[in-house]
Structure formats: structure tokens, C-alpha cells
């Protein structure tokens, strides 16, 4: 353990000396603050923590964390984070990305890191818009999004990030909200504890280009009725009075009373149940699920990679290049 980790750290210990350059009011501030606090409260060691990001507003995140940070190139953070983690599995690796970075240019790499189950925690800030390039629609924008690049409205159907991750066989899938520090922290802790890739979609407000796009879901006045929190081991209930619930049926899910609601266990739920829940918000009258959609154990990529190396060393003895060179059929000329 390093010296810094033996004394109790505070949020400030995770604040870097860099001036934060997001727009005033951006949802990123709240996420940053929650993360810095979570790091301190969870006893994270800054020397063993790495934040990797791609390109976009969200991807400036590593500069503001007083940990190791790697601000990389557009869409490729999953591949770079894979290399960081494989080369040193002792590191706690977090990846920060956005809806464009992860699901447009980097869709391929996101799919593959989830499939491989590398032990990296992924935070996808979803504001359903391109911020850094000034407001074009993104792969999570609803059909009909009118922006400068789509003056007559976008025509392509959006990704649902949760459904995407589940479709990639992700072992941990969750959703949270930028301004809900308590919920965010709960999800961070679960993701941190999970061995394998943890995928968290964070609904995040872009005050400049997509202000309050999520207000129908997260406004204080409606949130209790328009979100349903998936808590492992608890019933699927929601509503200001906690009187409403959901239960599984032949067609997926249906609304019911809280008393009739089903228990939610993301570790034992079938993939189809998790997927059905992820699709709930297709209907504007049903609440948007947040919380933990899936949390299952599976082989972790970098552990297996290193197990193979160790097995080969045990089997053949530690190799030296000298033995490689002086191998095979040889002959001598005097």
C-alpha cells in the first residue's frame, strides 16, 4: 500500500489542479463531484487508479481527477483501457465516454470490451446529443431530432445503450442520473465491486445543446412516477407513494400494484428479462428503469490471459530469448 492510501483521503485529494472547463450547469460537474467523493469514501488509492477516456465533453473527465489519466482518441478508449488493464491487472481502471464516442465511432470497441469482460468500469454519459462539435444529433437522439446537420429531422433509429450492452453479453449493466448523487454512488460501488466489465449509462444534461432533454423522466415533480429503480433483491416498485409495481408476464413486463410486483435479482434474471426491462421506456407512459439491470459472474479477460502465461511458464519453464535463438536445426561452419 502506498503512503497516501494509509491515511484517510477526502474528496479534495481526488481533485486535480486543473481548472474544469465544462459549460456552467453541465451535468458532468455533478458526476465528477460524485466520483471524487466516491473515490475518497471507498478508500481508493489514487496511485492505482486510472481514468481512460475517448473524445468529447465527457472525455475531459480524466484531467480533473487526481489519479492517473489517459485522454485518448475518439471511440478507442475501450481498446486502450483493455491494454492498460491487461498490462497491469493491479490497476483500478475506469473509462469515461459519451453517447457519440461509445456508440458511434467507438461502437465496435464498446461491443468487444463488453464481450471480453475486461475488468474496467465504463461510465457512458448519455446526453443524446453531440456537444463538443456543437449540437448535431447523436446515435441516441430520438428520431426526428432537428439540428443543423438534420434540418428536417434525423431519420435513423437510436440505440438504447442498456439494450446494446445486454446484447453484447455484458456482465454488469446499470443506469443512473447525473444529479442523483446518492443513486450514482450506489451504482459506482456496485460496479467497482463487480469483477469484469461494468457498464453504467448516466443520463446527463447538456445545458447548451439538449437542455433538460430528460426532464420528463428526472424532474423532481415526476421522477418518482417516471423512474423505477432496480434494486437487487427488492421488489420492482415505484411511485411517490411506492404503491406501483411491475411484474414479468408472457409479453415481458406489465404494470401492477406494489404488492403484486416481482422481486428483482440481476444476478439470476435471464437475459430476456433484463432486455425486456431495458425496453420499458419505449412507451412514454411507463417509467424509465434505472439501477442495476444485470450483474453476473463470468471469466475475466485479463485474468485468463495471465493464467495462460503463467501456465506456459510452469509447463515449459521461464523462457529466455537466447533459447529461442539457439533452437531448431543448426549447423556449424568452422
Amino acid at each position: 500500500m502506498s503512503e497516501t492510501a494509509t491515511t484517510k483521503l477526502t474528496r479534495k485529494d481526488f481533485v486535480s489542479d486543473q481548472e474544469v472547463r465544462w459549460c456552467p450547469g453541465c451535468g458532468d460537474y455533478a458526476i465528477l463531484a460524485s466520483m471524487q467523493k466516491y473515490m475518497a469514501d471507498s478508500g481508493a488509492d489514487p496511485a492505482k487508479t486510472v481514468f481512460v477516456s475517448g473524445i468529447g465533453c465527457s472525455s475531459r473527465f480524466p484531467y480533473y481527477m487526481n489519479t492517473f489519466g489517459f485522454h485518448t482518441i475518439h471511440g478507442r478508449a475501450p481498446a486502450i483501457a483493455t491494454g492498460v488493464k491487461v498490462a497491469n491487472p493491479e490497476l483500478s481502471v475506469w473509462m469515461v465516454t459519451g453517447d457519440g464516442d461509445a456508440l458511434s465511432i467507438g461502437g465496435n470497441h464498446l461491443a468487444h470490451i463488453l464481450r471480453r469482460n475486461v475488468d474496467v468500469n465504463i461510465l457512458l454519459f448519455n446526453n443524446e446529443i453531440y456537444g463538443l462539435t456543437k449540437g448535431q444529433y447523436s446515435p441516441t437522439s430520438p428520431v426526428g431530432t432537428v439540428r443543423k446537420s438534420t434540418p428536417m429531422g434525423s431519420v435513423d433509429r437510436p440505440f438504447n445503450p442498456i439494450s446494446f450492452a445486454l446484447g453484447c453479453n455484458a456482465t454488469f449493466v446499470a443506469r443512473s442520473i447525473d444529479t442523483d448523487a446518492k443513486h450514482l454512488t450506489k451504482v459506482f460501488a456496485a460496479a467497482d465491486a463487480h469483477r469484469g466489465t461494468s457498464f453504467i449509462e448516466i443520463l446527463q444534461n447538456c445545458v447548451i445543446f439538449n437542455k433538460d432533454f430528460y426532464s420528463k423522466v428526472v424532474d423532481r415533480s415526476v421522477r418518482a412516477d417516471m423512474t423505477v429503480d432496480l434494486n437487487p433483491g427488492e421488489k420492482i416498485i415505484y411511485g411517490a407513494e411506492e404503491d406501483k409495481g411491475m411484474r414479468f408476464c408472457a409479453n415481458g413486463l406489465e404494470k401492477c400494484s406494489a404488492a403484486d410486483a416481482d422481486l428483482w435479482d440481476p444476478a439470476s434474471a435471464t437475459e430476456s428479462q433484463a432486455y425486456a426491462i431495458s425496453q420499458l421506456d419505449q412507451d412514454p407512459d411507463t417509467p424509465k428503469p434505472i439501477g442495476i439491470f444485470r450483474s453476473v459472474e463470468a471469466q475475466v479477460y485479463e485474468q485468463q490471459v495471465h493464467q495462460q502465461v503463467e501456465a506456459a511458464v510452469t509447463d515449459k519453464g521461464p523462457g529466455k530469448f537466447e533459447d529461442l535463438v539457439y533452437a531448431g536445426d543448426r549447423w556449424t561452419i568452422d
Partner: protein
Amino acid sequence: MTTTETPGADLPLQQLERVVIRFAGDSGDGMQITGNQFTQTSALFGNDLATLPDFPAEIRAPAGTRPGVSGFQLQFSSKDIHTPGDAPDVLVAMNPAALAVNLGALRAGGTLVVNTGAFKANDLKKAKLDSNPLEDGTLDGYRVIPVDINARVLDALVDSTLSTKDKSRCKNFYTLGLMYWLYSRPLEPTINWLKGKFKSRPELIEANELALRAGFNAGDIHELFQGQYEVPKTEELPAGTYRNMMGNDAIAMGLVAGAQLAGLQPVLGSYPITPASTILESLASYKHHGVVTMQMEDEIAAICSAIGASFSGSLGITTTSGPGMALKTEAMGLAISTELPLVVVNIQRAGPSTGMPTKVEQSDLLQAIFGRNGDAPVPVISCSRPSDAFELTIDAVRIAVQYMTPVVLLSDNFIANGAEPWRLPDLNDIKPFPVQFAEDPENHQTFARDEKGSRAWAKPGTPGMEFRIGGLEKDIDGNVSYDPENHQAMTDQRHNKIAAIAQTIPTPVLDGPDSGDLLVLGWGSTVGILTQAVETVRENGSSVSRLHLTHIWPLPNGLEKIFSNFKAILVPEMNMGQLTRVLRGEMPHHNFIPHNKVTGQPFLTTEVVAKIENILKG
């Protein structure tokens, strides 16, 4: 080797200095194995040799067609040789398509061993031949040895339990046996190879060995040839221990060695691509050397995972060919900007775009040196031959870690799959260059530079060193900076750092007089042909000198002085003049004459000789 103990020993035994054989057949006929076995046996016998595999990109193009023809040419010699030879002395044609595609290369009066069992009407049709070349006079002027290999191999395996189809697949070993008899080669190396290769299938060992012996015995029993030849072992190679080596294998070993010498774990991110895939495969089999290999989802992920590994303090490596290089360019810029070590291996193939994946070209040089956005310099090194690839790969690793930079290591299809004797290095001559990671946070700045212009390498996990780096322009602490003066300074520093590498590169050694009318300047896999061409020109009575570059960017010091003593500098390249452009840009006051060929085939020695003599004539 003596022939007196073998039957048919009354046939004359004639000594030859050098022989060029080309094996040609269908891509399913095992011609590459046949050629490699002949090569390996000749190497162990003590000949000098050089090889030229030439196969289609399609794994199994329709059988019997011209696009499906696979060839393997080798020259073996009792003298020091440099090329696989211009024109084969012997062509082995396993079917009409192989004959039609390769006959033009056979030297006048050369020997042609033809598998007559594959010349039925349907075979001729598949090869788009209107008449049978065995009968229509096409082969007049060649010494034709007709052998029904299809039938002979079935005869030889009459007692085998294999299916007829599997028996037929042994015909390449029958052919190999025939050639072993003709050139008095021992069978043991191939039999030993078979025993290792088919360890779990003893029936295949037995059948192939039978076919090999049957071919060998047919040589004298049937008196197919008028005699036997012998190419004595060479006395000209320098003393030492040798093994036969192919370029890609040498690079794989060099990467393991380089990482060990640097004290780092090698981490390869790669994506399969012809002709680089065998490096990934070799490294995957070296796990007991601590090698980590990740077969990633694409070329971009491959380099990015390697960059991530370097960020963590390992030696990041990625291997590819031209189209993959194109995809990696943005990520290379990130490694340049963050100044992380990385070895990028490009086994060049004919381009542009998908080009001709199994054919040779040197046309990625400008891409390697300049092909990125922004001012993004990287050192570029090129292997010349299988036997220098090991040491140059180690040098690529050295430069990457000592200068905190990506290094492009170029090779090509000819080196990758070609083989030659490799004199094994004296291990005492290989000096380690252990990496010292920065561990003291006191006064540490992420982009502070040492006397070489390189930054210190700190890695995550080191307490107190927490840094943030990225592709945005940064100041000395790694923090984002859009300051105009800072960008100029950082750009200058990155440029100067790469330029300073020239101080660690030896000036290449001239072959021939240090002044004269003409200097022949090459790089990469043309080395053998240019060496041979220059020797031939000298034998013809003219004076010419030769220089070969392995480190191309930055150019080594001392070139200006060498160049100034020659009236003209001929630059033969398998591209449209890429090195010529670089040289004209760097040293505009010399008379560079480009000589270019992009057929997907190496230069012929005669082509280069003609060009040189033409220039000398004035």
C-alpha cells in the same frame, strides 16, 4: 555425401556450383511445404541459399486454374549467393496451369519435371490451354522429364490404409524425393520433420515417408535423369553456428529479445492480416517468455491496446501490413503526442488499398515516414533480409524505449516468407538496455527531457506520480495547453528528439570504392539483388559502389559525405520512387536516379545490371 551406396550409382555424378529450382503446383498441392523442406535440408547440408515463395492470396482458388498456382523458388549454392536466382534451372510443374504460368521463367535448355498424370483434357481446360503443351511443341528446347506422379504415388502407397484422396495428397513428397535424388540430398531432415509434424497421425508419417522414398528411388531405378548432381557445401560463409530463418520468425524472436533486454513484458495487440499474421502466431506460442498477445477486434483496437499497455509500463507492440497501417495512423499520432514507446511492424505488400496481399512491394515508405496528421515524426527502420531482421527488431525496441516514441519497423513479403541461413549472433555481443522508470515524484515533470531529448517514463501504480496525458497539446506537466509558444516548443522538441536518434545509428558501410561514377543505393529486401547486380557489373569490368540503408528516418549521419564522391546515385526500389523523393528533399544537391518496379515480383539481377551498365555507358 556419397552416392556409391545407393542403387543406380553407375549414373554419373556431376558437381554444380549453384542450382535454381522452382516448384509450381496448385495451391492445394503443398508446394510451399515442398520448397521449405528442400530449403531446410539444403541449409542443414551446408549450402548457402535464398528463397522466393510466390503464392496466391486465395487459400484455395479453384483447383487447376492459373490463379490457383502456387510457386516456391530457391537457389542453393556452394558459393556465397544473394538472390533466389533470376531464371530457374529446373521447373517442377505439377499441373498444366503451373506449367503455363511458370514456363516463361525457366532458363533456355532448362530441365522441366512434369507431372503427366495431371494433363488430361479437363486439366488442360481448367488451365485455359487449347492444346496439350506436352505434345504441341511448346516444350521444345527444354529437357522434359515426364513422370506420372499421380499414378506413381498411388503405386507407392498401395498398402496404405489411407483413402485415395489422402494418398494423392502425398504427391508433393514423392516430388520432393525425386528432387532429393537428383541433387543428392539426404532424406533424414524431412523424415524427422514429418515425425514432428504428424506426431498424432502415424499413418500420415508413414505414407509421406513412403512417398518421399519412392520418389527418391525412382530417380535412379527408372533412370529418369541422365545423372545426379551435387552442390557441395559452401566454404564461403563466415565461421559460426547457423540456422535457416524466415523474416517473420526473426522479427518475432527479436521482439521477445528486445523486451527481455529492456526488462519489459512484451504486450502485442494485433489483428490478422497477410503477410504479418505469422508474427502474431509465433508470439502467441512464446507465452513462456512472458509474452502477452491480444487478438483484437480490428487494426485500430490492436494498436490502441498496445498503446494502453505501454501507458501501463509494458512494451506495446502491434504488427500489420499496409492497409492495417492506414487504420493505425491516428493512434500512432496519440503515441507520438503522449511520447509512449511502441513498436509498429509493417510487413509491406503490394498496394494501394487491398492491392496484392501475397506479393512484394516497398511502397509504404512514405506512409511510414509521413503518413499522419500534424507534424508527427517517427523513426523508421527497415529489415533487409531474414538474417538481419532479428538485430534490427531489437534496435527498434531500443529506440522506442530510449526515445519514448513509436518506431516503425518495415519488412516485406519477400523477407517475411523468404528463408536464408542465419549466422546466430554471439549472445555476449547483445547488450541489455534496461528501462529505468521514473519513481521519484520530487521535481518530476511529465514532459521534462533528458540530454537525448526524451521524457522520463513514469507508470501508473507509482505513488505520487499521478499524471494525466492525452492527445491534446500539453505543457511540460502534461496539462492541456493551447499556448502558441508552447505548441511551437513542443513540436520542435518532438522533431528534435527524433532527429537526434541519428547519433545512435551507424553510418552504413560502402561496398566498393568510396568514389566513382555510380553509387547504387537501396533499402529493404532488394539487398540481395543489388549485391548480385553490382558484383556482376564488376565482373564485367566496370567500377560501381553500393550502399544499403536499414535506418531510413532519421537518415544516418555521414551520407552527405559519401554521396558527394559519386557523380550519380541509382536508387532501385519496388515502388514509384519513394526513397528518391525523401533523399531529394533532404539532400537536394545530388543526382539521384530512380529505378522503379512494381510488378509484385522482386527485381531480376539482369534488370538491375542492365540499368547500371546503361548509366555507366553515359
